[in-house]
């Protein structure tokens, strides 16, 4: 997906002189061809994320369209006030693109995990929030939010869900619809791959929201007579769903503790019950299905019910 980021940005830079990249000293090598073509438009500002965001606001004030890029926790959790005030409150457009969300840097431990970014950004007035699950979705969503000029946040993932789905900014899609289903599973981003596998053969609906803000509430409304279960490896989607109101929703995903197991992304997902087996168990449990669990969903699984 990071390659797609470069590809998309290279194309947009050709069309729009206002596009500048502000990097927090990552992806610089990957973007070598960009910086060769546009040497003044890739600014590797330094390991100073707060200033990175503030400067993006300043460059926006002088007519540029900044795209900020660095590692998820450092530019969302650390620089939250800069995003809140310098971008959102002052209404300076900027597209923030991060890598390393949730447990993409599993092996680095809790300092590099970040599962609050989507919710933190969602809470800010005027901010758009996206979690694409494929290169195609990234390309479509990035172009849409870049074009509209609002502050926006988009998270690049290490993996993809492996499905070829239609995508439109601000729209959710129905991945699976089962006639008479009483349960609807809702997710966003690459973990849709695990969700789809987990729900294979189960009489449930699956909704997918790569745009978390603005949320496609009209799609949600079509399923609000079913019980909803949000399966997600970050905060943000569940809160967006419940904030829409009028739904009965449960959550399966993050535990209330640091996940310092190291290993790879799939190791952590398995440990906290977000692998296909863990998700299937959670959906079965929630829907009261009699199918015997293949295994326990993991020691830290939590399900919150409204």
């Amino acid at each position, binding site marked *: 997906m990071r390659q797609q980021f470069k590809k998309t940005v290279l194309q947009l830079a050709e069309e729009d002189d206002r596009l500048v990249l502000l990097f927090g000293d990552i992806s610089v090598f990957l973007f070598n061809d960009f910086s060769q073509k546009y040497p003044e438009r890739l600014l590797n500002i*330094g390991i*100073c994320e*707060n200033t990175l965001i503030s400067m*993006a606001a*300043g460059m926006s004030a*002088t007519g540029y369209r900044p795209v900020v890029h660095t590692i998820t926790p450092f530019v969302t959790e650390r620089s939250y006030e800069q995003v809140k*005030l310098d971008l959102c*409150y*002052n209404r300076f457009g900027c597209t923030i693109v991060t890598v390393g969300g949730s447990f993409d840097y599993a092996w680095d431990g809790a300092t590099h995990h970040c599962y609050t970014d989507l919710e933190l950004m969602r809470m800010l007035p005027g901010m758009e929030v996206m979690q694409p699950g494929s290169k195609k979705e990234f390309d479509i969503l990035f172009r849409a939010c870049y074009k509209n000029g609002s502050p926006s946040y988009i998270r690049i993932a290490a993996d993809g869900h492996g499905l070829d789905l239609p995508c439109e900014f601000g729209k959710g899609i129905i991945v699976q619809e089962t006639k008479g289903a009483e349960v609807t599973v809702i997710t966003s981003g690459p973990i849709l791959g695990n969700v789809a596998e987990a729900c294979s053969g189960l009489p449930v609906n699956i909704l997918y929201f790569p745009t978390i803000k603005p949320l496609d509430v009209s799609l949600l409304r079509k399923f609000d007579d079913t019980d909803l279960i949000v399966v997600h490896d970050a905060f943000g989607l569940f809160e967006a769903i419940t904030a829409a109101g009028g739904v009965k929703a449960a959550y399966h995903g993050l535990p209330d503790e640091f996940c310092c197991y190291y290993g790879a992304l799939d190791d952590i997902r398995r440990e906290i019950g977000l692998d296909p087996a863990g998700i299937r168990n959670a959906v079965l449990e929630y829907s009261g299905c009699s199918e015997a669990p293949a295994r326990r969903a993991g020691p830290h699984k939590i399900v919150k019910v409204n």
Partner: protein
Amino acid sequence: MDGLSLQIRESILKISHHSGHGHIPTCFSVVETLRAVYETMRHNPADPDWAERDLFVLSKGHAALGLYCTLAHFGYFPIQDVYAFGGFGSRFGCHADRFKIPGIELSTGSLGHGIGVATGMALGLKMSGSDRRVYVVVGDGEANEGTVWEALMVAAHRSLDNMTVVFDNNRSQARCLPVRDPERKFSAFGFDVTSVEGHDVSAIREALALKADRPRAVVANTVKGAGCRTLVNDVFAWHRRSPDAHELEILLGELHETAV
């Protein structure tokens, strides 16, 4: 203190008394700085969005009342309007909102933000080949924030010769974390530095007019509450306090004594 600085300070006192809001001592320390900046920079009160204007950022945003009174003097709006300061529905908040007040380029308040945004503004203007400049006022208390020093490093590294930082050195952090010897610090960070008496408008103006091949810092050595001995002698008590009618009379009297 000349007649204009006296007039601006009088307005600050009266509006603070009227509204019950305002950080008077910190406003008083930047009166001459704000005057000098607005007498130096390119701007047009009749056309606040003039495309060729220089940009000013009050990074120490709690001196907003001082800025409003200065902008009113330069003709951005009538001073009578500012008497709504801090009231519900007023456009004059205790920290300025760029969408409500003509002449405000950035809504500030939380310390350590304006300097970073100003750095981005200067970089943007420089990249686009513009000769517009960016002026930013940073307080010494604000310089407890690490973001100030991040931004200074970037500005110097990027040789932003179109940016001038006025450092309001009013020793406001004497009781906790003083920023000692700011001239040496700015110099070490790569700035061209001039140190001035911060209540001498001409001296500040002259310092602002200097050019360099790198960003400039004007260290304005000021006194918090300058103009009223009651404020100067008890700055912490007056940090965010408005005078009652009797105190207003005393403070106005002290102001006039100083002006003479």
